[in-house]
């Protein structure tokens, strides 16, 4: 809730600072010469400043709530309590009461500490020492060293002088004490607002982990190999899918018989998500490369076939007529009219197919694989290596984005007439 509010605050503040203060000073570009911009979609351009601030904000939020040391300390959200705190408990037995002090050391999870030695003090209740890791809770058996224990009828009736009953809580410095059902104090150190590294490590930790894995590898394969395997599967699966799917789509666009024969198959397979095929493919082909490539082939096949079919069906009949009147043969019309005319559709299909394949390969690797981006994050998650999981997700996103940019670039170079017919 608080992170969301901070995020919205940054959004609004940045909006006013950039649009009302900074951009007032810069000369207007041509879009601002239009009198009508609201509702004119072509006048909507992503604001560069907004984009940059957006990305920075994500890292900023990430840093704030993980106590990143990339940020100056005053920007950190309050961290979890660390150090030593004390509280007193009041024990009652046989109508008598006695106070004793409990000293608790709260330590980071990865740091080992010893239970503090304390002087037992006087009375039937003796002072105690305990240690609790951050973000954890600890039951403190305060009566263990007392002269009168629970079995003697002793029970805790107050913490720091405040009366307490089982199920109730008393707040103390650095945490809170709740009495369990059985009457044992349960100490919970203050968590602060930061995320526990187990759930969300700081950005620099993800970064150092990336460096380590890039140089040392993960599970017998280097980082590049893991990503390379995933990419390799996608490319091979996609290429085979395109190699089969495009001619199939052409045949479906040009022949009644092919259209009739394959329409039911294609229309049935199209809505089946490739992920649903993973179990069957594993049964048939195992978890090795073959299975993955068959899966990606199937993922790309229908998309490419449908794209090629749409490309053929989309040819303007006047273009075909014109070509016939100019003396072109059927084969020449195929080569010089139908194929080039279908290329924009095929490129659109290829972009979609690459995206789907990339998603499918990661999912398939999550299920079962010896190596690959998906396997990496799945294995890491089993060992609670959240930093590797986050690194993997970021890399998967970056590669997916890179693939799409590459496809767009190829599209601009190879089919410059797209959308201009």
């Amino acid at each position, binding site marked *: 809730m608080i992170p969301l509010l901070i995020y919205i605050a940054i959004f609004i503040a940045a909006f006013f600072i950039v649009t009302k203060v900074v951009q007032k000073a810069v000369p207007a570009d041509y879009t601002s010469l239009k009198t009508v911009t609201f509702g004119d979609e072509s006048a909507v351009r992503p604001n560069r400043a907004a984009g940059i601030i957006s990305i920075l904000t994500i890292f900023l939020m990430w840093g704030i709530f993980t106590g990143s040391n990339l940020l100056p300390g005053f920007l950190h959200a309050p961290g979890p309590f660390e150090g030593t705190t004390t509280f007193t408990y009041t024990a009652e037995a046989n109508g008598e009461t006695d106070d004793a002090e409990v000293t608790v050391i709260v330590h980071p999870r990865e740091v080992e500490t010893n239970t503090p030695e304390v002087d037992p003090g006087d009375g039937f209740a003796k002072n105690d020492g305990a240690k609790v890791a951050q973000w954890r809770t600890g039951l403190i058996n305060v009566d263990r060293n007392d002269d009168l224990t629970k079995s003697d009828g002793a029970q805790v009736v107050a913490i720091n002088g405040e009366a307490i009953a089982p199920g109730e809580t008393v707040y103390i410095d650095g945490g809170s004490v709740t009495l369990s059902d059985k009457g044992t104090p349960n100490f919970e150190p203050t968590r602060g607002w930061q995320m526990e590294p187990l759930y969300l490590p700081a950005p620099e930790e993800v970064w150092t982990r990336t460096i380590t894995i890039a140089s040392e590898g993960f599970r017998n394969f280097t980082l590049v190999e893991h990503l390379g395997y995933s990419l390799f599967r996608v490319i091979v699966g996609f290429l085979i899918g395109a190699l089969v799917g495009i001619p199939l789509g052409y045949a479906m666009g040009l022949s009644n018989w092919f259209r009739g024969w394959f329409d039911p198959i294609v229309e049935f397979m199209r809505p089946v998500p490739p992920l649903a095929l993973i179990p069957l493919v594993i049964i048939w082909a195992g978890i090795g490369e073959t299975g993955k490539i068959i899966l990606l082939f199937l993922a790309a096949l229908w998309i490419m076939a449908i794209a090629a079919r749409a490309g053929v069906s989309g040819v303007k009949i*006047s273009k075909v007529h014109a070509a016939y009147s100019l*003396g072109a043969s059927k084969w020449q019309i195929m080569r010089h009219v139908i194929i080039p005319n279908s290329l924009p559709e095929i490129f659109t299909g290829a972009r979609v197919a690459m995206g789907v394949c990339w998603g499918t390969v990661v999912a398939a690797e999550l299920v079962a694989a010896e190596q690959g981006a998906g396997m990496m994050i799945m294995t890491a998650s089993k060992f609670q290596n959240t930093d590797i999981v986050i690194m993997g997700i970021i890399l998967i996103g970056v590669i997916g984005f890179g693939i799409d940019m590459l496809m767009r670039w190829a599209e601009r170079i190879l089919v410059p007439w797209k959308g201009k017919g």
Partner: protein
Amino acid sequence: MTGLSIQNLSMRFELPNGGAVQALQDVSLDLKEGELLSVLGPSGCGKTTLLNIVAGFLAPTEGKLIMNGHEVHGPDAERGMVFQQGALFEWMSVRENVAFGPSMKGMPKGEKAEIVDHLLDVVGLQDFKEKAIYELSGGMQQRVALARCLANDPDVILMDEPLGALDALTREKMQSLVLKLWKETGKTIILITHSVEEALLLGERLIVMAPRPGRIHTEYRLPFAELGVGADLREVKKHPDFGPKREEILSMIWDMEEEIMGRTEDAA
């Protein structure tokens, strides 16, 4: 025997709902080599259908088509077509579009380049040779379409409202260009138009078609095309016969349209 002979053509479209449209009924027409024919008629009277049959894209339900002594059974390079718009190949440059016909025939490079250069000169697009189609204005695109058709050296050129999408000024320039090309190349040309003035200017012969069923209603022989070659078309329009002819044809088409409207109103 050269020329084009259209003999008793009828065309019936069977509709999926069981009905049928008689798009053409018993249309006959003889065109000598080098004749310039313009075709007028209210919308839906079968002009495009007639042209598509002549081009060979449609087979008539009855009648036949004789071209240079042989019967027509499909599209062929001897009958070139200029479409209203959107029939250029946008994946090719202007030059490649114009060279399409010769390339399909496997014409040697040098000869092809010569033809293309000459035609681009004729239509005034030499500077746009390597440009992409989508970088050209509508008028330029139609000039490319004309040049592409001519590069193939057809005997008959069929045009279905080739200038329909152009502005008045560009249109006038294109009309002069069509006349010039007609005179210089001596091609037989059939031109469909919705503009009565254009039909008068670009037709040695003019036929007015009537709808339901589509048929030839009236035929004229006109002097304006000859007068217009190399001349200012606005001068031609001042010819004493021009205005009366225009009014006559306009009211004829107007009457047909009224009749159609009346009939649809009756049906409703």
